[in-house]
């Protein structure tokens, strides 16, 4: 493939949330790892979709690539030139080539500017056109995006959401860019209007040879518009490939869950939904190893165990809960007030814990059963420390230990997950359909 037109290498954006003197004195650096070591390539004329749920870092990524936000580390190359090295005036020149479209194009603009001035502003800033020529260019741009040139004297509030987004697009087009980073450009729009804007973006891409980075949370929209897709989770890329590759197996377990969760507009659709444990962890202190391991339905069992995947997932949930709690109240499901946790018998506690985590009274794996039953012994004595040590040591997934790298599962398809490690000892490396059957 040709040289990418825009490329990120080892891009990082950390925010410091250390809240003051005490924190910094104690060396508590609360770094939010919003974007953590990302490589990304955009090729000429293509649309690269970046998709993920809130907090995954996709918007920070988009803004960092254009240095609307300064990256903490890493480089962004535009046609081979490193943007992170440029002075602010050099950067300004490059911005005629790379533009940004926001979800709400006017949130940052003066509401007293007319539409003509909004579109004309970049022409003024970059000294592209003035006078008669400037006006003509504005009319032409309005027409290009499907608006009436006579509207250039109106104010933004006179326009509907879809028309406003068209104005935002006209403003981005004013400087005749090569690349546009579109950040949730249609997510605030009604379905019928959303389709109009998506079509417009595709037409413009064809007419002007544009390349897009299209950031969105809506998978069906991303699938529709993208040639390639990168799926993000907690600041990292979990999977990337052509649209077809990402939407078909092999999957990254997160991408798979995401796909299964889309509500299909077909009442008879009965695909299996994959539910994830817990919620997205904080990016301040992301999970060790694979960041998805706290929720992954396929989280890998240690070699010495052999139990149904669901049981293993529940054990991992139990472990996570126990590691962060110091009262029985938070690990045992007590819905009956007659149970007194202070004087509870071992057997009752055992039952309540297994009920809370949906575990069988006897685990399928004898070795694992021993670990949990010893942990319950300790818990009955309210010896949390030893109980924690037992499960921390006994229920240890390889996924928690090593951060999986993006590895190729095809020429253009890459997945960051240990299931696809070449090491044949890992379950699932050779036969991924096994893992599917377990869910």
């Amino acid at each position, binding site marked *: 493939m040709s040289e990418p037109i825009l490329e990120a290498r080892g891009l990082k954006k950390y925010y410091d949330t250390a809240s003051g003197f005490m924190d910094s004195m104690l060396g508590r650096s609360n770094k939010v790892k919003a974007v953590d070591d990302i490589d990304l390539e955009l090729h000429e004329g293509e649309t690269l979709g970046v998709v993920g749920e809130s907090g995954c870092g996709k918007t920070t990524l988009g803004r960092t690539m254009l240095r609307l936000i300064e990256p903490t580390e890493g480089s962004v190359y535009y046609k081979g030139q490193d943007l992170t090295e440029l002075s602010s005036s050099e950067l300004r020149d490059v911005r005629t080539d790379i533009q940004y479209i926001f979800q709400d194009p006017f949130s940052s603009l003066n509401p007293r500017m007319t539409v003509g001035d909004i579109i004309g502003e970049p022409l003024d800033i970059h000294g592209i056109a003035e006078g008669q020529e400037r006006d003509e260019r504005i009319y032409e741009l309005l027409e290009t995006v499907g608006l009436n040139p006579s509207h250039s004297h109106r104010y933004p509030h006179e326009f509907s959401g879809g028309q406003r987004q068209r104005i935002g697009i006209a403003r981005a087009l004013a400087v005749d860019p090569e690349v546009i980073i579109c950040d949730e450009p249609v997510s605030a729009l009604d379905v019928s209007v959303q389709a109009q804007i998506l079509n417009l973006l595709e037409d413009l891409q064809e007419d002007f040879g544009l390349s897009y980075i299209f950031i969105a949370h809506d998978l069906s929209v991303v699938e529709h518009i993208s040639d390639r897709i990168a799926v993000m989770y907690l600041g990292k890329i979990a999977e990337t490939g052509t649209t077809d590759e990402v939407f078909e197996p092999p999957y990254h377990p997160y991408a798979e869950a995401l*796909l299964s969760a889309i*509500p299909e507009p077909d009442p008879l659709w009965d695909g299996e939904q994959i539910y994830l444990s817990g919620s997205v962890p904080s990016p301040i202190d992301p999970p060790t190893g694979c960041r998805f391991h706290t929720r992954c339905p396929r989280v890998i069992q240690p070699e010495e165990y052999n139990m149904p995947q669901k049981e293993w997932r529940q054990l991992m949930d139990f472990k996570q809960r126990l590691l962060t709690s110091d009262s029985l109240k938070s690990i045992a499901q007590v819905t009956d007030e007659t149970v007194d946790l202070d004087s509870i018998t071992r057997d009752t506690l055992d039952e309540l814990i297994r009920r809370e985590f949906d575990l069988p009274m006897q685990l399928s794996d004898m070795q694992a059963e021993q670990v949990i039953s010893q942990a319950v012994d300790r818990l009955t004595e309210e010896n949390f420390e030893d109980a924690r040590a037992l499960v921390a040591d006994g229920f240890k997934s390889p996924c928690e230990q090593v951060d999986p790298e993006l590895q190729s599962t095809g020429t253009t398809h890459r997945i960051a997950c240990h299931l696809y490690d070449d090491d044949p000892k890992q379950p699932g490396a050779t036969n991924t359909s096994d893992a599917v059957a377990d869910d």
Partner: protein
Amino acid sequence: MALLEVEDLTVNFYTQDGTVNAVDNLTYSIERGEKFGVVGESGAGKSVTALSLMRLIDSPGHIESGEIRFKGQDILSMSEDEVRSIRGNEIAMIFQDAQTALNPVYSVGEQIAEAMRHHLDYSKSEAKEETIDLLAKVGIPEARKRYSDYPHEFSGGMQQRAIIAMALSCDPDLLICDEPTTALDVTIEAKILEEIESLAEEFDTAIQLITHDLGVIAEICDRVMVMYGGKPVEKAPVEELFYDPKHPYTVGLMSSIPRIGDSTDRLQTIPGKMPDLVELPPGCSFHPRCPYAEEACTLSEPELLDTKTGKPASEVGTNHSAACLAYSGDLTGELDYSVTVNEDSKSNAPASQITGDNQ
């Protein structure tokens, strides 16, 4: 008698720009245990219907006329006290924005328990135990511990679950959900929808689900009403609506959503924008955007007709109705679109695809 019967409901908002006819002559009914969907885009009047049911329309809004009968009793002619005893008790509501529904200064558990004591006459400790039970049921882990957490200590998804728990706490007969998952991430959305559905089943609660998302409708609802410009334009059982839509607006809406696995480059669109409710187009309000519009459409306003017989739709006998002149014989042309239902290899479910001269 249906659980809820709305008849000829008209709601106006008196604004500086003029009278906004938010809901116009709306009639529908919901049976016990039924899951009824209301779908439409912004300005369609979806949320106004929900607020009217709870009699929560405030000035400058005004319920102009109509009847809303709940178990046969007209909500609109009840005293404020009577309405209050129904609200939250027999009819509960889940809004999009969980934050506004929870009081930030009380713990989540207390709020739910308080509602239960108020409506169901529980003792303090009974209410607490029931609440913990319910929190666990809607999927809040560590329910007993989280009982005393404050709303801000809950994530968005957890708050929405707490709202569901609160809504279900008094075992309502009707649950109104207004865009209940729109603010949530898709993996959380899937779980919450699943919970709403299974809890409603368990408690035999009827649902009125209001959303712009056809995917959510397809997943949950038995019967659907499509609204446009304050009016219902089509009513049908969910499968008929998706596989055999009868109103041009429904057809346009269905074909403008991007569908996974569909490789066509361009989406079909509905040209133009939503109408201004102050100044609705004359005749059929959809005519400026409708590919099949004729002169007749600008002159007479179509009423909801039984699409089979062409007779005025009735709440009892009509299965599928649409408000388009094509069904009264006043259109000279035909609604020239076709729906092909393909067997989707991945899900083994039919996936509909609509083609026509919508472009």
